[in-house]
């Protein structure tokens, strides 16, 4: 089994039990499949909000949805190394079956965090001196010729000498003759110093360490070596960045005005009233104060429909919030543009189609009529677009 960033696919699955969040799985009863190319297949089953099983299995039948991807992408997405959206949009991750259901898995598990392999003080010292030569900045050491000996005390300690000569740098794990300057420091302090957790002034001022010889040379360390990068990625903790979540809500009193008012009052009386341009004759649904084409005031109303034919339906899969209520709409739904009887051309009227009839709707054009539909009126009507619940097929 291949490793990616030191983690293999099984690590992710084996840790699922620990990472499971019951609060993210309320009301879920389903199995989810994972088909990881060249790695195998796994089935994760959730039963009434608890994680029932994570099994490596050949047969993924019965899963509501299956994720198909490769091991690297899978590990990357789970560890945050690979951007999930990019992988998905770029086709590296595919979901077969119920996409929406699969989306819930994102909330069911905490992020995978690889177990930390701690570095000891000794590990750090070895790594720090081991990388000195590679961190040497040649250009910053022009005309410099000196030796720094660092006597590191403590259990992990030792003596290292850094020899700078002719713009080259050599490190030996020993004393050398005639060092220009000798530093004396404890092992943990040297590690902290190199990681930037403390600084030389503080150490010296606190009596933890001493300098013998040319102190000016010792102070050049920072200029001639690049900063040490902590292989554990530690050092400075990532700053907490604040996000303030607010739903801003301001009450409104929308006036309908006479034109829209007449139209909405018509709906109350189970009538669909279009207003008709006195100049070009086009019908406006809903009614508007002016014909934008002719720039003339439109005051005449004509009752149209209530039946008509669908000219175009928007088949909406995307769930968006309703800005008037803040609630998310249920998907999929169909928004139909209906050419009501009595209207011509592009004078269509937009409304919703009965949810279970979405797949039966045919759009009309030219001489081919679309599906005939009729409005379903509410019993109680208030003068609103939703006095018509929706349209349904007129059989």
């Amino acid at each position, binding site marked *: 089994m291949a490793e990616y960033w030191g983690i293999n696919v099984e690590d992710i699955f084996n840790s699922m039990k620990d990472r499971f969040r019951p609060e993210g799985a309320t009301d879920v009863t389903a199995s989810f499949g994972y088909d990881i190319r060249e790695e195998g297949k796994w089935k994760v089953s959730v039963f009434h909000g608890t994680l029932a099983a994570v099994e490596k299995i050949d047969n993924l039948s019965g899963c509501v949805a299956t994720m198909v991807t490769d091991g690297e992408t899978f590990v990357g997405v789970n560890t945050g190394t690979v951007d999930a959206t990019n992988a998905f949009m770029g086709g590296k991750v595919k979901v077969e079956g119920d996409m929406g259901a699969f989306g819930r898995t994102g909330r069911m598990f905490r992020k995978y965090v690889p177990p930390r392999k701690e570095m000891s003080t000794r590990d750090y010292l070895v790594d720090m001196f081991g990388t000195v030569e590679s961190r040497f900045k040649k250009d910053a050491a022009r005309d410099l010729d000196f030796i720094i000996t660092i006597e590191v005390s403590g259990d992990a300690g030792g003596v290292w000498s850094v020899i700078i000569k002719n713009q080259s740098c050599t490190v030996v794990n020993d004393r050398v003759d005639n060092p220009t300057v000798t530093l004396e420091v404890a092992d943990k302090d040297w590690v902290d110093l190199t990681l930037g957790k403390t600084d030389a002034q503080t150490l010296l001022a606190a009596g933890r360490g001493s300098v013998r010889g040319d102190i000016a040379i010792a102070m050049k360390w920072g200029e001639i070596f690049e900063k040490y990068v902590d292989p554990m990625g530690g050092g400075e903790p990532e700053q907490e960045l604040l996000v303030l979540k607010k739903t801003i*809500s301001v009450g409104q009193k929308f006036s309908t005005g006479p034109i829209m008012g007449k139209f909405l009052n018509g709906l109350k009386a189970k009538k669909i009233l279009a207003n008709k341009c006195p100049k070009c004759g086009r019908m406006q649904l809903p009614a508007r104060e002016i014909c934008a084409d002719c720039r003339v005031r439109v005051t005449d109303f004509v009752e149209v429909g209530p039946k008509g034919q669908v000219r175009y339906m928007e088949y909406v899969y995307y769930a968006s919030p309703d800005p008037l209520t803040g609630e998310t709409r249920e998907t999929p739904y169909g928004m139909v543009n209906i050419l009501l009887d009595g209207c011509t051309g592009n004078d269509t009227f937009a409304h919703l189609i009965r949810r279970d009839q979405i797949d039966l709707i045919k759009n009309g054009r030219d001489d081919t009529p679309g599906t005939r539909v009729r409005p379903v009126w509410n019993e109680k009507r208030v003068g609103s677009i939703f006095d018509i619940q929706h349209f349904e097929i007129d059989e």
Partner: protein
Amino acid sequence: MSKKAEQSESFIVEGKLALPYAYFAGRVGSTFITTIRDQKKIMGVRCPACGTVYVPPRQVCDKDFTDIRNNWVTLGNSGTVVNFTVVRYDDRHLPRTAPFVLALIKLDGADTPFMHILEEVAPENVKIGMRVEATFAAKTTNTILDIDHFKPAPEKVRMTTERPEAGRKAWTPGDEPEMQEKRRGGKPDMSTPVIITAALTGAATMKNQNPAVPYTPAEFAEEANKCWKAGAAMVHVHARADNGMATHEHDRIRATHDAIKEKCPGLIVNLSSAVGMGKTAEQRISQIVAVRPEMASLNTNTMNFSIIDRKTGKIFIDYVFENTFTMLQDFGKAMEENGVKPEIECYDMGGLDNIMLVAKQGFFTYPMNFNFVWGVAGGQAFRAESFIAMMNALPPKANFTTCGVGTEEFPCIMQSCLLGGHMRVGLEDNIRMPNGEFAKGSWELVEVAVRIAECLGRSVATPDEARMIMGLKKK
């Protein structure tokens, strides 16, 4: 409308504008608020170009467009009300029910006041100028309301916003020989104003020891300004690079000098001719000649100048500070020729003798100005009788001031003030207040010196008075 009948069709539909938002505070805003939340500490950012300390913080100074995001300054949690209103209406966006007070509060150390809620005081008792302090919220909202509100605070014991010279008559120099006579007779001249010098940094004190240590020219200017406001007539300056290292770069030293002069044109700037460890004689004096400050330090002997554990005697840094007779002569001449008045640094009686030998060449102008330095590892420690001995060894018409490292600072300046001498304080020598707390800046140490002068009935010299006393040509 044309037709009345149509109007009857109009009606009102109740609706809402309701949308979800997730605002990002950004790094600067997050630092500001999490510090309030977690450390109960209010911070501002200082613009290094114009010196303004802003609250709330921001990434760029909108006045001069300088990037200021990392220049955090910790402010006091108390401040002064500069303006306020009593909100007497209720509305859903308001954090309190009416009536409540919104006030513009200028925190101690900030230049721009900011808005907050003022409570625990009746609205009719709110006054402009009243002192208030922050009460932090028990529960976080991760907004400015992590300060729950401000409430009245006791008056600050002493708030130095301006030099303590108001109402005082200007001093004019009297008969100098008489001054000498008085001192010789054991009667110190307490009528001469006392010159307070603020040594803003040495070559060694770093920000991690006290964050008020200035590095950049703007920081120097700001700190100098505060010291001037607190009562200092002169600042002693060792310029630093951005990383805090002592520098001998002329441009940097000039920038530092000029920044201070721009911010406080009247203040005397006294530069160091020591600069820092491991600098050559050329590096040490060429910058003085290049920048030509009004005054500069002149060190009197080659000596140990080390860092040694005061308790155990362990040597951390061993260093010899070289000041040969040739250097004394060359530096002294260079200064006098360039109109820079030397401040003669004596770390012991030997140093004083050294300078008197060289002075026989006759290039020093009078009065000579001495500084007795106490407590350097390599120089002598402070002793009252040594002080008097040093004073008595001075040549005629000489002035003296003094400074001491660490806790020696306060006894030595008090003795100097008592003997008619002058005082030097500041983060170069000492980073703490007499009670052991960290000084908020050299200015706070200046405030201590001012109090000493007040106790002894001496007035504090203005920069111009200091110039008269020390024989500087007015610039």
